[in-house]
């Protein structure tokens, strides 16, 4: 069992938090460069909103060994919102699962990095996803296996709020609760926008906390871009017994790309040169502010 003090302290863990923040900035720059230079349309919105979540899981939280991606006792991670694959790939690469050179052939024939996660091709990917609403129930099966075997591993699944339009999410939520899958922790990327834009008034799934509580899940809420807040919720989830946990991670869709942050653009788009420059400047500004804070 994880000690409760794994939660990051804003004072005591300041250096660690800044280290994680720098990794997230690097991941964002990498994703922007990837899409811009390869002139491809990416789900920047859905990808950018989960960068901190993945950075914390892979660089601090989960029990994993990049040199042994199939290690039986590792924690599992399922990216149920598989269209955010670039974020997962960027973080897996920086965690050491594969070299950056893999991106040279990103989404092309023969590549180990497919458009959506493929466990049979990419080291570190625990489940192939892409059809929304399926990663969560697969993660439930993994958590059930951990329970049957009384194994040490936990299962983390990242789902989107737009993905919660899928009925299979709620079918899985009901079953996971009935099975008492307390080794399952769901991180819900609550950016309140789906592919076509703002969900409110169209395909809204709020009030989210009430819904998961009604399904008998332990519900936590945090700022999905803040490591202290995220880690505190993860600690709460990991000490929950007898039922699964969901962490409602309040996020900003397209975090790091000013246009995507501030306007209801679609999730999936080409990055025009002007927008690319604007995004890089925004990230530089964030980094400068952060380094300035550290000097204070």
């Amino acid at each position: 069992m994880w000690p409760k003090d794994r939660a990051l302290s804003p004072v005591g863990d300041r250096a660690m938090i800044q280290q994680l923040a720098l990794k997230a900035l690097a991941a964002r720059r990498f994703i922007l460069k990837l899409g811009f230079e390869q002139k491809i349309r990416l789900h920047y919105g859905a990808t950018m909103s989960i960068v901190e979540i993945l950075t914390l899981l892979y660089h601090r939280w989960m029990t994993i060994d990049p040199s042994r991606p199939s290690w039986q006792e590792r924690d599992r991670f399922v990216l149920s919102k598989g269209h955010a694959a670039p974020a997962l790939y960027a973080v897996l690469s920086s965690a050491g699962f594969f070299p950056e050179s893999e991106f040279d052939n990103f989404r092309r024939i023969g590549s180990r990095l497919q458009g959506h996660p493929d466990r049979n091709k990419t080291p570190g990917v625990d489940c192939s996803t892409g059809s929304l609403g399926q990663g969560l129930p697969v993660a439930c099966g993994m958590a059930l296996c951990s329970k049957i075997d009384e194994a040490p591993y936990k299962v983390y699944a990242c789902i989107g709020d737009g993905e919660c339009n899928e009925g299979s999410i709620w079918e899985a939520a009901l079953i996971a609760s009935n099975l008492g899958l307390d080794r399952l922790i769901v991180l819900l990327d609550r950016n309140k926008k789906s592919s076509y834009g703002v969900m409110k008034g169209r395909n809204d799934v709020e009030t989210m906390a009430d819904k998961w509580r009604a399904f008998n899940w332990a519900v936590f809420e945090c700022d999905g871009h803040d490591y202290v807040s995220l880690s505190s919720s993860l600690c709460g989830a990991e000490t929950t017994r007898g039922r699964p946990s969901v962490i409602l991670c309040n996020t900003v869709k397209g975090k790091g790309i000013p246009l995507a942050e501030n306007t209801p653009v679609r999730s999936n788009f080409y990055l025009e040169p002007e927008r690319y420059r604007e995004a890089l400047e925004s990230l530089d500004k964030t980094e400068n502010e952060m380094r300035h804070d550290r000097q204070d």
Partner: protein
Amino acid sequence: MIGKTEDLSAAFGRALLELGRVNERVVVLDSDIADSCQTEAFRNAFPNRSFDLGVAEQSLPTFAAGLALCGKIPICNSFGVFSATRGFDMIRQSVCYNRANVKIVAHAAGQSMGYTGPSHHTVEDISAIRALPYMAILSPCDGVEVTQVVRAMAEHEGPVYLRLARVSVPHLHGDDYRFRMGKLDRLAEGSDVTLFATGDLVHLALEARSVLADQGVRARVVNVPCLKPLEREEVAAQGADTLGAVTIEDHNVLGGLGSIISEIYSGSICKPVLRVGIPDVFTESDDCEKLRKKVGISIDSIENCVHLIVERTQQNAGRTAARKEGAGQQQRACGERTNEGF
């Protein structure tokens, strides 16, 4: 050889219990119909490896995929129509694309749920499922074969779809029978036409063979317990030396056994294949046998198909002889004309 009569579901329940005893990795998933699926004996014997997900058929393959990716051999149970098509996208994406070692059992397949009507008839499953890479499809014909395929599917590394009709039929195999993945099972010899049948309709094929024998036609009966993988060589070895083939299945003729055999024949064997099965319609409610007869799954249909192949082959042989004769005459005429030039 005809042995005792046994319900295929009961044979499955018995085989599953035995499998649970010898393989601790086996986990059974139910969908609120453990009684209909005959999984209760397993459930009682291994409560820690048996989970009822409730009326949630699309969750069966996904939960099973998660279990399989962590090392279990999950066996999903529901009526075929829900096992196969309710969760088809889940089977495609989470089972097959993941190459997860999941076993999907389609209970009461074909029209064997008779009176419940078309909503519960599993008649498009082979067509849909066989287009999925890595998936094996098994369809046993008697209780002995059910026992064999249950063992085989657990030993086979990869996704398997097992199709079981809810019928009671006599054993056609002895205890020494051994099912082999990808292999056909010749049950009766014959040199005129080959009858390829799957599931319990193998029994109908054998009855048709007797009727045809009285009419002087020698039909060979080949049981198809494994619809995928099925290689050309295996089919050719069983049928290429006869005049043609008739396929018999309780499934839509689009995409099922008839299509599988036709694809192989058209590619290389180049002999006629006629299909006995359900035409492209929704079925209706009644007794299973009556329903099968109504859509043309009957001894009469098989008989007609066989005679058609024999007659057409004879007509073609006649035409070929006439063509050869015609060609000879033409050659002679040409020769005569040519000779005239000399």
